[in-house]
């Protein structure tokens, strides 16, 4: 009888120990996954930040930027004529972007244009693609897309609203 009671006590304690261990393991798992998810979010934010940084850097690089040509010196302004020249000679500029950039695209958002890739003429298209891939983290920023137009024999500045999309991938991985 006494032996039985002792066994039951040991069994009870064993159950208790298992239950408490299980409880702490679950709490530990919960905290760990919470921490991991916050690290993952931070990593994503950093990658996005890099992509945004690249988008701004590209928009202000001499190969893209309008400079003072359109009176838009302090604005993120892309020269559409430079962009088309760059597109036509894209192989010569492969090293310009560095290894991380996988996608560079400029999409005209206003005024609304017919959808399609621009090939030489900018009037009936809305996309200028310099590099295309969906890999990496994407970031976009609204920019001015300016060019020189001619009306009644006189040249004037035409600036539209466009979105610069850049995808960035950490190539060191």
């Amino acid at each position, binding site marked *: 009888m006494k032996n039985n009671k002792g066994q*039951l006590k040991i069994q009870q304690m064993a159950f208790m120990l298992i239950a408490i261990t299980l409880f702490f393991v679950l*709490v530990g798992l919960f905290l760990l996954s919470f921490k991991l*998810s916050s690290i993952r979010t931070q990593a994503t934010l950093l990658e996005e930040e890099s992509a945004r940084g690249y988008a701004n850097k590209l928009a202000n690089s001499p190969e893209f930027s309008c400079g003072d040509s*359109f009176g838009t010196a302090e*604005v993120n302004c892309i020269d559409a004529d430079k962009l088309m020249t760059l597109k036509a000679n894209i192989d010569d500029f492969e090293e310009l972007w560095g290894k991380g950039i996988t996608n560079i695209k400029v999409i005209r958002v206003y005024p609304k244009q017919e959808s399609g890739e621009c090939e030489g003429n900018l009037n009936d298209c809305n996309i200028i693609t310099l590099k295309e891939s969906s890999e990496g983290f994407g970031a976009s920023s*609204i920019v001015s897309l300016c060019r020189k137009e001619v009306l009644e024999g006189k040249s*004037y500045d035409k600036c539209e609203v466009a979105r610069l999309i850049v995808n960035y991938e950490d190539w060191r991985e």
Partner: protein
Amino acid sequence: MNRKGQEEIVGFALIIIIVAVILLVFLAFSLNKPEKEDLENYVVKGFLDATLAYTSECRDERNFEFISIRKLIGDCSQGFSCYDGESACEILEKDLKGITEESWDLTRYDGYEIRVLKKNQSIIDTIKEGNITKQSKGYMEEIDGERVVILFKAYY
């Protein structure tokens, strides 16, 4: 005594299971929470800068040049018309509406509003879409040093 001990164990196990289930549900909920689009100040500023630089369809009555939104706001505040007789304010309102509609995706952001004010009085109807929420980022730009301002606010 034996029976009482067994009841205690079952009761404790039940509590552990309930707590574990609650923890797991909370964990699943917190991991599946949809990520909201964050909005940075420079995105709002960049948008307003690009909007103000946009070349409108309005031609200046004096030199026949197409004018930018920045200049169009100045003309509208002074009641000027374009070369073809259309009101500067009508073109301004149409362009601002079009630019904001095409630039801001309301599936990613909650809403936006844009106002053009002269001495704190709106000179065109406020352009407003989506929902006004507590979190917002805004930017204001003074036009030509006059008391005319354009104010843009995005809600997220």
